[in-house]
């Protein structure tokens, strides 16, 4: 019984970790385009930017719901501790996502108010991204936990660190968004996206550096994880590879293959994600509750696994196919609409 329980926990950890990563990569670029939208050079460019995400953005967002419901099912205790601790950022994120969603839906049919809906889309994307970054920062810092409950206040999330990660994610999603734009556009807009991408990259690298220095200082367990012997022997390549990828990203943004900047951004996110995972493993509520202690009963995990293993591949294949069908450059005059 014990062994089977552990194996389910492992599978669900992988599924949720992959789900969160998919969400960040996919909704990350369309949120990032929302963030960049307000800064774009012209109205025609803004139109092109909207069209570049029109066919895929809502599919991207479904991964957020997937992560939420997978967490409540597979790790209910983690859900019950983490979500209350980030009550306000979650609230702000949800309301911003709702606004952004309907703004997208209405803008295509409501030409008289299109500028208003576009601004709502941009504003909603920016606020939602910032809120997600704050959630990330609060998560890394950890929460006050007593027994099986979050025992802090609803304003605990608000720290200089979480504000910093909020801004960091704006740069991060901006980087993904400009990478996506470089793939989907050409000419002046693409050149603008490359410049915007470099600015975002500087922000991202600064954020990675700050987090890498700040977290070991405030949390001794993270310092021990990275710098103790023999861990350091295995872990030293992580920062080194990150530096290499950063250099690659900088050069890719300067010119060359259209897909390279997005690919390099994905790698940067993967490495950052890996870094956070190494720092916190195996705690699902950082520093407090492990994945095994938070896990639902084996019967619960297996009951949901049956359907997930059947339905998830279909959803994945369809998403992949939809990206394939909508491949190629978009222009503002001939689009999907």
């Amino acid at each position, binding site marked *: 019984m014990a062994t089977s329980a552990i194996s389910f926990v492992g599978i669900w950890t992988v599924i949720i970790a992959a789900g969160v990563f998919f969400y960040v990569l996919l909704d990350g670029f369309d949120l990032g385009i929302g963030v960049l939208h307000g800064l774009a050079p012209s109205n025609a460019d803004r139109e092109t930017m909207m069209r570049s995400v029109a066919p895929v953005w809502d599919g991207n967002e479904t991964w957020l719901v997937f992560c939420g419901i997978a967490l409540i099912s597979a790790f209910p205790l983690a859900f019950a501790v983490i979500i209350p601790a980030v009550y306000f950022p979650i609230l702000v994120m949800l309301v911003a996502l709702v606004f952004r969603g309907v703004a997208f839906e209405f803008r295509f049919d409501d030409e008289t108010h299109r500028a208003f809906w576009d601004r709502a889309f941009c504003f909603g994307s920016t606020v939602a991204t910032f809120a997600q970054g704050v959630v990330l920062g609060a998560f890394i810092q950890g929460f006050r936990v007593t027994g099986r409950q979050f025992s*802090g206040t609803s304003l605990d999330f608000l720290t200089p660190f979480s504000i910093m990660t909020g801004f960091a994610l704006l740069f991060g999603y901006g980087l993904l968004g400009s990478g996506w734009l470089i793939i989907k556009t050409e000419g002046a807009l693409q050149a603008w996206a490359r410049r915007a991408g470099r600015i975002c990259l500087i922000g991202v690298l600064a954020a990675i550096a700050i987090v890498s220095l700040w977290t070991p200082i405030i949390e001794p367990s993270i310092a021990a994880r990275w710098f103790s012997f023999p861990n350091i022997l295995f872990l030293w390549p992580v920062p080194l590879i990150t530096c290499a990828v950063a250099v690659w990203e900088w050069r890719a943004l300067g010119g060359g293959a259209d897909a390279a900047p997005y690919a390099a951004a994905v790698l940067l996110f993967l490495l950052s994600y890996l870094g956070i995972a190494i720092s916190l493993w195996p705690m699902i509520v950082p520093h407090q509750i492990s994945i095994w202690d938070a896990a639902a009963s084996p019967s619960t995990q297996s009951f949901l696994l049956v359907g997930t293993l059947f339905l998830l591949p279909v*959803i994945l294949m369809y998403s992949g196919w939809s990206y394939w069908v909508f491949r190629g450059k978009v222009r503002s005059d001939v689009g999907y609409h």
Partner: protein
Amino acid sequence: MALDALTLSRIQFAWVIGWHILLPAFTLGIASYIALLEGLHLGTGREVYLRVSNFWIRIFAVAFGMGVVTGVVMPFQFGTNWSRLSDTAGNVIGPLLAYEGIVAFFLEAAFLGVLLFGRKLVPRWAHFVAAVMVAFGTLLSSFWILATNSWMQTPAGYSLVDGRFYPENWLDIVFSPSFPYRLAHTVTGFYVTAAFVVLGVGAYTIRRGLFGQEGRVMVMTALTLLGVMVPLQIFLGDQHGLNTREYQPAKLAAIEARWETASPAPLTLFAIPDPAAETNRYPIEIPYLGSLILTHSLNGTVQGLKDFPADQRPPVAIVFFAFRVMVGIGFLMLGIVALGWLLYFRRRLFDTRWYIWACQFTIPLGFIAVLAGWTTTEEGRQPWTVYGLLRTADSVTPSLTAHDVMVSLLFYALAYLVIYPTGVLYLLRLVRKGPGKDAIAPPVEAGRAELPVARLPS
């Protein structure tokens, strides 16, 4: 009633789910209606069914999109405001909630694109199959979400270890005692709601005179469906009531505002319940009828609220009046439908202008009945989230202050008060455009941006 974190959290949940439920209440029925129209078109070859179907597909797309967007908010409520419920019952209700979501994505991923944009790209039968699958998918989603709700109303198949629920038998959990009744009653209610929207829009279309044929098809199909479903719904409601009497007698007592156990029990048509004095003011009662309806015998015993400790009784007045609103609308619907059929058999249905005029205003009826019914069952199961086992007061997130929830409630209030009127205006514009010829052009657009199938080589 103090405005503490608990009360405000309940108001917030009622607010976000109350708005959300209006969309599935509509899209569930419309999905099946579209499948029916596609089937009629396939069977008879009449173009008018196609035009009506295309018209509703456009409206369905917008409503479904709003349903998804407002649905994203829902699962997070269990974490933000009801974290103790999530921890205590997550082992059991987590997967049920999750299946609802996964099934919804699956449906969206696999079939919605074909239905919305694939008319010219796939064979007719394939489009019909997609329509049927979308309808089936919405039903499956209801299945799982109502299984979740039913388990909380009438828990079964679980064990309690250290104060938390563990699954023992998934079949018993999914098919808890109230589930078949709740599923049948809710789904039929949703069908009736959508059919009254079709009736109202059809009547409006006829009155405008532009698309008379399409309008008549809408009115006739709606009246046909309603002729079956409204009586069926009254029967199902009665059956659901018997089930409630068995498993949630305190809820039934609140529905009837019955304080003393009685046999025979009268039916209280109207009263002002007074919980402090444990009695009813200004009651209007019909002898024997309460026993007859609730137990199907003239002398059946109906339990009163005084049989339950005061801290295990639901709020009486809300439940009592919400139930009467629901039932009142049910019988009003029956009258409207019966009148329609009477006029039809006298061959005067479409010439009776006042009837067609009046039908336009039946659109909100189903929605009000759904909200009233939902209020009845959710207020009626108080003060429990998991009936008889976990109190609502013990389900709320302990770290929340009244101030926190007041702020979040204001946010949600503002958001929905902007979004819903805008959405309704947008839908009204689609209705005003009508099922014209241009409606045949593939309905592109927007949040649900054109899906891949539309890009297939034709």
